[in-house]
């Protein structure tokens, strides 16, 4: 099946646009490029709106705007009606044509700034196997859509590229189980199963009215069945939580693979920083101590020759008994001059004057002022000598200490540098969050494992009680002849219920097997690394496992492009198994794929388009050189351009 054209009239950015999807010789590949805001994603919405009357991919900006095109609203008078039409033209493999046309009628209240929908209906025009044209509308039209592409599986045909990236990342087993359930179309069996269950209840009620004991047993049985059912639900929920936790732990462990223990490194880094600061402070204080020592002693050392000389002079004078002086020269001079002793006041007589004159003429008598200075200096200079002697020893010790600090700091800085290099290139905050999240999921896993044990025991005990009560009920029913007919009916219902339940399980298992095989076939056909992977397994718990050629499970460690390819293969397998061969339409298909992998992914899309119509929606930046080099010659390209007043988007075929 292929889309021949889509016509958008008055729908959002599109005033009147017709997109023709002509097939190239070998591929049916179409690339629509549009900047954000040009209505690229609204093409995806228009298909949904036409077929299912909803717009699941509506952006926040579009949500506040009316469905009716803004230019149309501008040109419409107040209180007038406007029609929004989307037409999808399809051709099937048997060359039958189909036209889906959704008409929406809207009242434009310009004074109130409101657009209100009046009517909305779908019309279908198709050619049947005999070539006759048929028309459908209302419920018939909706049923027809459900036969062409059921609403519940549309998300496997029209989707956002991000979905491919996330599909096997988040609760994948849940996604796979739902997908298989949808594709297997076993909802009818589910309905029968429920009906049979309620029918059994009604028959038991009837029996209970005839025999009160039966009613009591039935009530008791109902209680345990309810308990069993609730416990089963709780177990399912618990298992789901365990699966999610396991998947998350696996995913986070893979993300953290090769990533250093950031928390530990961060602690070490902080410790090193503190140590370096401490050492630097010590070093600074020591350097100041050394500087002061050099300054203080340096002054003395520079004049050391002089100081030594003076110390020697003073020493000699002391040795010669000149210091302290034995005579006061001035006192003697005054005595000679006044002829009266300056000490006792008596007149000097005889030889005394001569003796005193000889004494005063001696050159080595030091005046008291000089003597006082010299004696004072003597103590200080000798003290200098002691200090200077210790100086070299002290300075050597301080220098060694400084060198030791320097060495320590260098080593610490080296360690810090190593840690910082190890940490560089990592988003530390993100990694710490990963660690935190992993811890959280590990706790969740522990709690749920414990809870599961308790619930399993509870379920087992409920089951045993149910079996016991069922036997009791059976016995009671046997007692009453009147109940014979009721019993036959009841047995039939129970048997039928068992068969339906088993059939349902079998279909699920069979569908799962088929999808698994088809996914494997498509994936290995499309993957660019032919030797890297060995197998794809969907296990009993609906977990998908990609097996590396070395034998280990590697889904968590593959690239975004490989993961998207796996999701795409799974999606295409669903198409095949479901039997709905509708085209595939992907918005932003390579947004999560790295530049170097876009080439590979582009080739995959070309391969797919050989058997199936593929419509891709890109932003100009996403349609990078890597992907455009691959797709340009194979795809038909369209460009969406917003008019200058931004009320309308035009389409150009490139």
């Amino acid at each position, binding site marked *: 099946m292929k889309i021949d054209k889509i016509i958008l009239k008055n729908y959002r950015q599109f005033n009147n646009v017709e997109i023709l999807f002509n097939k190239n010789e070998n591929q049916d590949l179409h690339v629509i490029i549009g900047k954000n805001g040009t209505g690229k994603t609204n093409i995806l919405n228009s298909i949904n709106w036409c077929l299912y009357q909803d717009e699941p991919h509506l952006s926040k900006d579009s949500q506040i705007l009316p469905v009716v095109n803004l230019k149309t609203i501008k040109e419409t008078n107040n209180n007038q009606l406007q029609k929004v039409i989307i037409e999808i033209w399809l051709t099937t493999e048997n060359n039958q044509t189909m036209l889906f046309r959704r008409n929406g009628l809207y009242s434009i209240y310009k004074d109130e700034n409101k657009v209100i929908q009046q009517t909305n209906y779908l019309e279908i025009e198709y050619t049947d196997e005999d070539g006759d044209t048929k028309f459908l509308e209302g419920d018939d039209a909706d049923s027809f859509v459900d036969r062409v592409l059921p609403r519940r599986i549309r998300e496997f045909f029209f989707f956002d590229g991000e979905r491919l990236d996330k599909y096997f990342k988040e609760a994948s087993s849940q996604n796979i189980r739902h997908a298989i359930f949808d594709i297997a179309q076993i909802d009818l069996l589910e309905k029968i199963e429920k009906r049979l269950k309620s029918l059994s209840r009604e028959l038991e009620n009837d029996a209970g009215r005839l025999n009160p004991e039966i009613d009591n047993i039935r009530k008791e049985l109902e209680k345990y069945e309810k308990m069993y059912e609730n416990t089963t639900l709780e177990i399912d929920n618990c298992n789901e939580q365990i699966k999610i936790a396991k998947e998350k732990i696996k995913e986070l462990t893979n993300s953290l693979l090769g990533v250093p223990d950031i928390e530990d490194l961060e602690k070490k880094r902080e410790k090193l920083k503190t140590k370096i600061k401490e050492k630097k402070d010590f070093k600074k204080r020591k350097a100041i101590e050394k500087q002061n020592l*050099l*300054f203080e002693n340096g002054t003395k050392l520079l004049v050391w020759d002089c100081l030594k000389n003076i110390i020697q002079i003073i020493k000699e004078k002391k040795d010669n008994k000149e210091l302290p002086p034995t005579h006061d020269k001035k006192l003697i001079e005054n005595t000679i001059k006044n002829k009266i002793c300056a000490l006792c006041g008596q007149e000097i007589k005889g030889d005394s004057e001569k003796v005193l004159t000889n004494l005063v003429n001696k050159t080595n008598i030091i005046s008291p002022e*000089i003597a006082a200075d010299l004696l004072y200096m003597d103590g200080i*200079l000798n003290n200098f000598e002691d200090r200077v002697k210790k100086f070299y020893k002290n300075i050597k010790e301080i220098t060694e200490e400084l060198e030791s600090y320097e060495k320590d700091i260098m080593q610490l800085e080296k360690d810090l540098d190593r840690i910082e290099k190890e940490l560089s290139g990592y988003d530390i905050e993100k990694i710490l969050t990963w660690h935190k999240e992993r811890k959280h999921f590990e706790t969740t896993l522990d709690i749920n494992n414990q809870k599961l044990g308790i619930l399993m025991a509870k379920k087992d005990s409920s089951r045993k009680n149910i079996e016991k009560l069922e036997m009791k009920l059976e016995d009671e029913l046997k007692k009453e002849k009147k109940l014979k007919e009721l019993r036959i009916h009841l047995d039939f219902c129970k048997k039928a219920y068992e068969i339906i339940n088993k059939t349902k399980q079998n279909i699920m298992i069979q569908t799962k097997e088929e999808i698994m095989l088809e996914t494997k076939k498509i994936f290995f056909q499309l993957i660019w690394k032919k030797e890297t992977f060995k197998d794809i397994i969907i296990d009993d718990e609906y977990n998908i496992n990609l097996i590396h050629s070395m034998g280990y499970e590697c889904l968590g460690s593959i690239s975004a492009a490989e993961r998207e390819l796996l999701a795409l293969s799974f999606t295409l397998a669903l198409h095949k198994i479901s039997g709905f061969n509708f085209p595939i339409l992907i918005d932003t298909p390579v947004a999560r794929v790295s530049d170097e992998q876009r080439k590979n992914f582009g080739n995959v899309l070309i391969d797919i388009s050989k058997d199936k119509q593929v419509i891709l929606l890109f932003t100009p930046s996403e349609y990078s050189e890597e992907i455009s080099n691959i797709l340009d010659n194979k795809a038909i390209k369209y460009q969406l351009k917003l008019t200058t007043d931004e009320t309308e988007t035009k389409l150009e075929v490139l």
Partner: protein
Amino acid sequence: MVNKPDRLYIDLKSRPLYEKLESEPFFKGKTRKEQFLFAMAVGFKNNIKITIEKREGIFLTKDLKPEDEALINAIAIFDANSIDILLDKAQVFKIVEEYANGGIQILINKINSIEIGTFEKYFEKDLFDLNKI
């Protein structure tokens, strides 16, 4: 004894040199008296005395500690080759002022000529070269 002057002097022209000295880390936080005594020691070591042309007070003699005075007196005695110089404090101060005037210029020249390393490193090396104790 001749009256003791109340302050020590530098040459007016040397004032900027003392200011410059402050920017050298080794002399950071040192008082003018400490700077003067250091310059005096450098001048004495290099045997350079420069007469002061225009005097400007640098610090008061009351700020001299006994050990500063001992140092000054020793240089003056050595320079005058007589202990009697101690009776003339004005002369004692004149001698050390001239040494300081010579010393400060040597010091600044030395600081300016350093391209690699610090003054402290050079000074430490000089002291070890003296190795006289």
